[in-house]
């Protein structure tokens, strides 16, 4: 018991330090019946960094995210999230891990029967004992951050596709998680709207120090997030500008092909890769 407590404290201390590993995949495998979805996948997400998982449809990208948040269990391998082995936790134990994880699903997955306010504040209204006034204030603050404050009373069906994705981001960030998981957050959006969603991801990462895993097959968005950074000006305004070389290196790319990692490196390494599959993917 004492030993366990010491281990937990040590893990917490390590996680507080810069450069700490917040998500670790160690030789993870998963198959649905005869179809192997992930084969021996290993990677690490460093605190405050971005991991971009690329790959064609059905390559296992979304499955990897669902394993991180505990929606799916790996057949083999170890998965660490914020110092906890999610592959060994029960559904009840996973609830604690999920308190620090925000996930944006494909198409947003907003609750149809709830307003934008209720969607964004869902976790705070339903799963915490915070005073209503505090929750309302946080919801308004988050919607202001993503520029949708005037839509607070609308239903999801009244929003455009891009607005829905941004509300989904607001819902995931309302409870201030330190890790965000984006599952095809920009797929199906026009380039201008996709850029507004990308900007929200960048702002969260750089201004709120949120670690991110971005799953996408939209190369344009993947490179945009990796090669830009958010800066707050003296007057409080936030601008998204070209990232410094050092900042660019904080975004790492993984390419999955049939559940197997075939590339791992930064944006430059990806662009210059000679692998025929990656070349065809980039072209």
């Amino acid at each position, binding site marked *: 018991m004492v030993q366990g407590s010491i281990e937990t404290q040590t893990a917490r201390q390590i996680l507080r330090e810069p450069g700490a590993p917040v998500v670790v995949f160690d030789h993870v495998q998963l198959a649905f019946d005869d179809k192997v979805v992930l084969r021996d996948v290993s990677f690490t997400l460093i605190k405050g960094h971005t991991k971009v998982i690329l790959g064609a449809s059905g390559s296992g990208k979304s499955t990897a995210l*669902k394993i991180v*948040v*505990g*929606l799916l269990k790996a057949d083999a391998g170890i998965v660490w999230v914020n110092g906890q082995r999610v592959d060994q936790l029960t*559904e009840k134990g996973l*609830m604690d891990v*999920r*308190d620090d*994880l925000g*996930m944006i*699903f*494909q*198409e947003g*997955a*907003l*609750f*149809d029967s709830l307003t934008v306010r209720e969607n964004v504040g*869902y*976790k705070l209204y*339903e*799963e915490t004992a915070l005073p209503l006034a505090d929750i309302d204030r946080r919801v308004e603050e988050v919607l202001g951050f993503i520029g949708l404050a005037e839509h607070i009373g609308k239903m999801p069906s009244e929003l455009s596709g891009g607005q829905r994705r941004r509300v989904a981001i607001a*819902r995931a960030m309302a409870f201030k998680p330190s890790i965000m998981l984006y599952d095809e957050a920009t797929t199906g959006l026009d380039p201008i709207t996709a850029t507004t969603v990308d900007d929200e991801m960048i702002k969260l990462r750089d201004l709120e120090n949120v670690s991110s895993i971005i799953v996408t097959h939209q190369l344009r968005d993947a490179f945009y997030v990796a090669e830009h950074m958010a800066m707050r000006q003296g007057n409080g305004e936030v601008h998204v500008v070209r990232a410094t070389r050092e900042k660019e290196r904080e975004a790492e790319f993984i390419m999955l092909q049939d559940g197997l990692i075939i590339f791992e490196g930064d944006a430059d390494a990806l662009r210059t890769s000679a692998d025929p599959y990656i070349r065809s993917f980039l072209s």
Partner: protein
Amino acid sequence: MLSLIERWLKASAHETQEYVYLTSAAFYGVFTRPFYRHDIVEQFDQIGAGSLTVVLLAGLFTGAALASQSGLTLDQFGARPVVGRLVSASMIKELGPVLTALMLTGRIGSGIAAEIGSMVVTDQINALRALGTDPVRKLVVPRVLAGIFMAPVLTVIADFIGILGGWVIARFQLQVNSGLYWSSITKGLYIQDVWMGLSKPFVFGFVIATIACHVGLRTTGGTAGVGKATTLSVVAGSVAVIASDFFVTQILIALMY
């Protein structure tokens, strides 16, 4: 052929296992925190108050048709004045509970399966889990509680309206004296009949809601899958109501009569 049967048996066993798992998780959720009171109240309103019109109409016309048909048969024995007794016994013991349950299967069983099924295919259930909410506690428990407790209430209302519909026919078509009609009801009704009529809806409400939730949560295949789940929920729910009616009747007869 053998492998086909084997596959069917495996699939059936798996479905049964998942159904039992869901019902036990729901049972556990009824007695342990967290409770989603707002959802429970909302479901009581939707399933109870929302089904009132359907149940009233079904009860009224069933009672009226029953009185009309019974009148013809009873005339052959010169027993037209006891039409009330026949209507009340049939309504309270059998027709009221079963027809109300079938109406609820069509109305709420399909609604629950479609709603939860849509949430599954649009990732809303996964979103709930990712946000730290147990979908069984949030979605299944309120619907099962509302099904269990509102089905008996609706059945009692259907019974009363059915008997009232029977009175309209008895009084104005069969020309039976009102006093005679109502007194034959009270004379012919035993406490066992009332228990029989009140016990069944609890079982039916549970069966309808749990089957609908189970089918909804296991929806796959996009919007077409939601349509299939809705149909399956109504078909499986209706058959389950009729089958459980038989077994509950046998048990209650053995226990009470």
